[in-house]
């Protein structure tokens, strides 16, 4: 070979090697696909809508700064309607047809109970940003996770502070008999905590999701005269329960599970919910720059003609979950090549399993050995129309 030819060959060879190493280290493909299953219709629709807004914010932010490993992020969303039957269809579609890396969702514990085993079967990571009934992840290792806090972790310190603050000796529990989380809180989480702190439980009452009239239950509770009342259920009914209680002249203190700790409670309850306690890992008013930026973006994006509202815990945690997954994809060198789909999904699973002290906008997030979130928790109380921490 002539000298020129020789140099050209060396040059081409070196370029090819550099290109090849570049290609294996970088995420390839047109887009990185994450899946989301949200309750966009049905009774949990506002949770779904809020998470959709949060996902859109995360996607725009990530793509504005170059995407994941320089490939744009695409989030494929399906409506699970909050219905376990539809949830199964959605998981199958996202895993097998859309071939996403990870599924963010579902919102309700009832859906988790059916799709977590399915995720194990299909070998795909599924991360619920909201489900909080204890034990669900632990039963279904290793693919499902919950970037939330189970009720027992949040409510133990909250109930303790509530009892001390209001000097409570007797209590009544009222809960939503149709909701898996509420039922678990009222029957499995609250009673042992109350007994531990020496509180007498006078009665358990129920209602069902969607009820608007609570006069019968409140009259009954009024008759029992407890010092305090615990609610298990969603914030809409919780707010109206407190409203009805105040209307019937009751002055007792209330405390609700983490799902009541949202702006909806204050919006619907108004002055009546002043002094309402809750335990949560998502404190919207946290004086943290990234949290407040997210809240502001969220309120701008989510306006309808009547309500421009603050994000709920689902929105915040799903936002964090997108960023956690992004970091895992980049650090674990996920390739995004179609042949590597199984291996890539395993890398994502390992990333979530070993997640320790990730700096999310909720605070530091870690996954415990059961696949549930562990990290900061806050005891909050409604004061002057906002949730504030209780000292």
């Amino acid at each position, binding site marked *: 070979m002539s000298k020129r030819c020789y140099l050209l060959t060396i040059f081409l060879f070196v370029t090819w090697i550099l290109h090849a190493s570049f290609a294996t280290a970088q995420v390839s493909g047109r887009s990185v696909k994450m899946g989301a299953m949200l309750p966009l219709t049905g009774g949990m629709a506002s949770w779904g809508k809020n998470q959709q807004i949060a996902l859109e914010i995360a996607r725009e932010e990530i793509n504005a700064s170059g995407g994941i490993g320089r490939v744009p992020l695409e989030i494929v969303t399906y409506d699970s309607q909050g219905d376990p039957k539809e949830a199964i269809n959605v998981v199958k579609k996202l895993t097998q047809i859309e071939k996403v890396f990870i599924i963010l969702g579902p919102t309700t514990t009832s859906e988790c109970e059916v799709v977590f085993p399915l995720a194990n079967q299909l070998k795909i990571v599924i991360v619920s940003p909201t489900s909080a009934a204890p034990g669900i992840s632990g039963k279904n290792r290793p693919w499902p996770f919950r970037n939330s806090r189970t009720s027992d972790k949040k409510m133990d310190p909250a109930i303790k502070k509530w009892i001390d603050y209001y000097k409570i000796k007797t209590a009544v529990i009222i809960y939503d008999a149709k909701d898996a989380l509420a039922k678990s809180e009222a029957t499995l989480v609250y009673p042992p905590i109350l007994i531990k702190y020496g509180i007498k439980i006078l009665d358990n009452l129920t209602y069902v999701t*969607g009820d608007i009239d609570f*006069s019968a239950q409140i009259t009954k509770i009024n008759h029992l005269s407890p010092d305090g009342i615990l609610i298990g259920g969603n914030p809409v009914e919780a707010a109206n329960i407190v409203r009805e209680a105040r209307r*019937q002249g009751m002055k007792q203190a209330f405390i609700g599970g983490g799902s009541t700790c949202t702006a909806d409670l204050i919006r619907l309850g108004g002055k009546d919910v002043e002094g309402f306690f809750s335990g949560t890992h998502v404190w919207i008013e946290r004086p943290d720059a990234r949290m407040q930026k997210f809240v502001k973006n969220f309120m701008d994006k989510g306006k309808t*003609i009547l309500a421009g509202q603050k994000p709920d815990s689902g929105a915040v945690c799903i936002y964090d979950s997108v960023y956690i997954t992004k970091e895992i994809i980049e650090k674990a060198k996920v390739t995004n090549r179609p042949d590597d789909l199984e291996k890539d999904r395993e890398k994502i699973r390992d990333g979530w399993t070993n997640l320790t002290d990730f700096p999310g906008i909720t605070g530091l997030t870690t996954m415990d050995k059961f696949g549930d979130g562990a990290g900061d928790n806050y005891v909050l109380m409604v004061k002057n129309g906002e949730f504030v921490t209780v000292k």
Partner: protein
Amino acid sequence: MLLQQLTNGLMLGSGYSLVAIGFNLVFGVLGLLNFAHGGVFMIGAYVGVVLIVIFKFNIYLAILGSMVVCSVLGLVVELLAFRPIKKEHHLAPLIATIGLTIIIQEAAIKVFGPETIGFPKTVEIQNFNLGPVRISSVQILIFSTSILLMMGLHFFIKLTKVGKAIRATAEDSQTASLLGVSINQITVLTFIISSALAGAGGVLIGLNYNSVHPFIGMNMVLKGFVIILLGGLGNVTGAMFCGLILGMIEVLSVAYLSSSYRDAFAFLTMLLILVIRPSGLFGLRIHER
């Protein structure tokens, strides 16, 4: 406590009555189960909120405004789901109204969002103690409005010429038209009255329970159906009383039995009535259609 529970039931029931009266009127006069009544009810509640929040109306003007808007909506329902549908098949208009309800619901979700909203706190609600029982000003308003509207409707139908025309159409529309009654006009009037009542009901019930979302109409219409069966098909007075009875059944079953079966008790009662007394508690005879 029993007295308060009975009062709770009465108050809940008067809300149901308000919705059931209009529902029953359309059925009595036109033989149509107008499921779009639920959609109109829900829009009535939203209109009330919009009028109070954006236009700063007071509650009475909001009720009136809602009644006006819902009358127009009722006219639209008549034009879209009733008039163009061939009456040969009994169920066709019914299904058309179900379809229209779904459209109205989806439109509400698009415009207002699916989340639950409440009435703003600018609407003052006072509470009164009548002896051992506590009632709110809204509940008194609902109760008295139901009774007033029912009485008004009753006298309208019994004493006015137009009311006579309505009764004639209800009894036999063919003969009535032979005698000079304009069936189209009566149909439109029936829809307008019934929708105005639904609108008023929407505002009052939305205000009382502080829960307005796109799905509140569905449940109301199902309860309305139970009430008209209980009260006798087409019997407006019957609808009024049976609304109250249903409210009391629901509250008492929640208070003394189990809240998980609240709706089950309502429908169980309906089944019992259908078996024991199919013409309803106040019905005189079963309508042949």
